[in-house]
């Protein structure tokens, strides 16, 4: 790792100020992607501004059907929250599938979505749940937040403070983890809202990162069963294709996992 200067922020405002004063700084949250990247010298920020100990950005708030999760809440905290599990178990299940237990003890929801790794789990949930991404500057709808591979609508000095969503009437997540890394080769989050509308968020598969599948959304809005997906098509040319799985394989996974997500939803 190249030299860097560490700063611990105690508020989001202080963090933004520290970053503005840095030559080429980066925000650090759980560090489970950034630090390995720095160890391999693929990133070399002059300064790291640690957000993980900002108390105002920690914790889960449940207000009826409205869920708010602070940006530096760890995956382990989301996975093990019995209060959250009672109202929306799928998000807890998803958090419990990220990486491994040690990663989950450090990694945070804000860090995951800010990084927007095309194989990360949370972006699929954010899209499907129509989540709002709250930042130091504004509130961004998930549809507008995820721009491209590792690219989001965030400005350089903008910090995610929390995410928020309304619990749908049904939701579920199914994932085919890469056998070594546990990243999603494909992961599909499905939600059915009170008004009958459906949102399907797909991660790990799209060549431009997380995406929604409108064909599946309308099929599931008709009938909420895995069988309803049988005539849906997923464009293999729009999928990632790599040593682990080609586009056609991933396109098939999208359909299979969407069905499993529906079957496991409640």
């Amino acid at each position, binding site marked *: 790792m190249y030299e860097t200067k560490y700063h611990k922020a105690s508020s989001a405002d202080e963090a933004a100020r520290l970053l503005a004063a840095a030559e080429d700084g980066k925000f650090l949250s759980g560090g489970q992607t950034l*630090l390995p990247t720095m160890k391999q010298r693929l990133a070399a920020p002059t300064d790291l501004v640690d957000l993980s100990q900002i108390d105002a950005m920690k914790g889960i708030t449940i207000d009826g059907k409205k869920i708010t999760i602070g940006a530096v809440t760890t995956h382990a905290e989301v996975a093990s929250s019995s209060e959250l599990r009672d109202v929306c178990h799928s998000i807890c299940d998803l958090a419990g599938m990220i990486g491994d237990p040690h990663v989950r003890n450090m990694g945070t929801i804000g860090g995951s979505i800010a990084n927007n790794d095309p194989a990360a789990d949370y972006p699929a949930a954010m899209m499907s749940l129509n989540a709002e991404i709250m930042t130091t500057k504004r509130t961004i709808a998930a549809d507008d937040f995820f721009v491209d591979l590792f690219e989001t609508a965030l400005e350089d000095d903008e910090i995610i403070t929390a995410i928020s969503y309304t619990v749908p009437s049904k939701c579920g997540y199914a994932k085919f983890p890469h056998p070594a890394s546990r990243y999603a080769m494909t992961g599909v989050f499905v939600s059915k809202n009170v008004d009958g509308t459906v949102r399907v968020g797909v991660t790990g598969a799209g060549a431009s990162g997380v995406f929604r599948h409108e064909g599946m959304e309308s099929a599931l809005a008709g009938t909420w069963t895995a069988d309803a997906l049988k005539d849906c098509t997923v464009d293999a040319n729009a999928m990632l294709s790599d040593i682990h799985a080609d586009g056609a394989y991933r396109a098939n996974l999208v359909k299979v996992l969407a069905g499993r997500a529906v079957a496991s939803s409640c």
Partner: protein
Amino acid sequence: MTTVSMTVNGKAVSGDVEDRTLLVDFIRVNLGLTGTHVGCDTSQCGACVVHVDGKAIKACTMLAVRAEGSEITTIEGLAKDGELHPMQAAFKENHGLQCGFCTPGMIMAATEFVERYKVSGIELDEAAIRKELEGNICRCTGYHNIVRSIEDAASKM
């Protein structure tokens, strides 16, 4: 250089480190506690797992400066009064190691999740043990005896 202070295995320690120093290097180089291993350098193998404020984390993926003020337990901190921790004893009894390189990380991971399951009241069956070991890689044993060791220790913890 930055001065960091923390409690390691019940003892207050401090040292001067570069901000880029990983917690595992502080533990091994500054404190000379070489039981915590570095297996992969890519944050995947779990040989470096220690407890920070009771949570199992990869010491190779946390900066030492971030651990300021923390309570840390390493493999050297498990045995009490010359008696092996039940998890250590179980690995010995059940042939839970061959070369032993991954063992400190395995044991630190296992002591944490056995405790976590006990507190939550969820049954720690074989499938749960195997799932909880996803972050720890062993290249010798094939895991069977590691799982047996943890099952054995869990019944005694």
